[in-house]
């Protein structure tokens, strides 16, 4: 799953807080990925265009691939894709995947992805939630900051700890749901 590409849109949108959640919904047989930010948001018109791969505001390349790719990956598994956004308020991107669908992309190394985002954007707060089979884990940089005081989240020693913290706590939950 190309979580990094999509979360980077939130970083680029000037978000102060980005929430990423991964939820296993056994009853509906869905794996739900949500990326929510309080960045600059998008107008109706932009929302209707962003899933077109030929729409992008970036200047280094002519096509935007993050959102169209996520949409395609979700729909390929009988899932769903939605974007809710309001200019000035923020954006919420949600992709639902068929949990046991053969074409569902592997979840990938989410611990490294989230830890990398935190390490590289130490001024933004991130909340990462994993929910599956009655278990829940939440990593919140606001709590980490409260402990760290002056020591920045970008310090390699801290970044290393964050990755291990997420990995150790989420691996068993995801494994119990058979999704990694």
């Amino acid at each position: 799953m190309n979580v990094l590409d999509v979360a980077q849109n939130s970083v680029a949108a000037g978000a102060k807080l980005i929430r990423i959640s991964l939820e296993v919904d056994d009853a509906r047989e869905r794996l739900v990925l949500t990326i929510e930010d309080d960045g600059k948001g998008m107008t109706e018109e932009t929302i209707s265009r962003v899933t077109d791969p030929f729409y992008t505001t970036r200047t280094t390349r002519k096509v935007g691939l993050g959102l169209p790719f996520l949409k395609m990956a979700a729909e390929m598994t009988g899932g769903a894709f939605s974007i809710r956004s309001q200019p000035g308020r923020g954006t919420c991107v949600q992709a639902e995947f068929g949990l046991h669908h053969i074409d569902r992309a592997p979840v990938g190394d989410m611990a490294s992805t989230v830890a990398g985002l935190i390490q590289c954007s130490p001024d933004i707060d991130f909340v990462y939630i994993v929910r599956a089979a009655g278990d829940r884990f939440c990593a919140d940089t606001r709590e980490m900051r409260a402990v760290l005081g002056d020591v920045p989240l970008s310090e390699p020693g801290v970044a290393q700890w964050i990755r291990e913290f997420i990995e150790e706590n989420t691996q068993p939950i995801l494994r119990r749901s058979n999704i990694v």
Partner: protein
Amino acid sequence: MKSLQELAAIRDRMKQTVNTREAAHDTTRVVVGMATCGIAAGARPVLNAFTEEIARRELSGVLVTQTGCIGLCQYEPIVEITMPGQEKVTYVKMTPEKVSRVVAEHLIGGKPVTEFTIGAAAR
């Protein structure tokens, strides 16, 4: 299992080595290209390896960050290192195995590992 309490111990250890008010111009930056092509080529383990090695050696004033497209897919994973007062050095086709040498010779020793750089690969 790791918990937030451990973070307090890390903070206390860091406070001794880290000058938290480090000026931007004294900071060494290790920038890893993390476009889709970079990730496919294995950039993530490289970023993790740099973070681990720098944390293990407790180097201060070194940040590891990521960037998007550098425009050189065929050379990914690409890592750019900028040290204060020096020109940017671009490493190409990086692997986690190459990381410890780059940390020891370049970040600590101050001498880039030329055989891993873009100049050497293009020749």
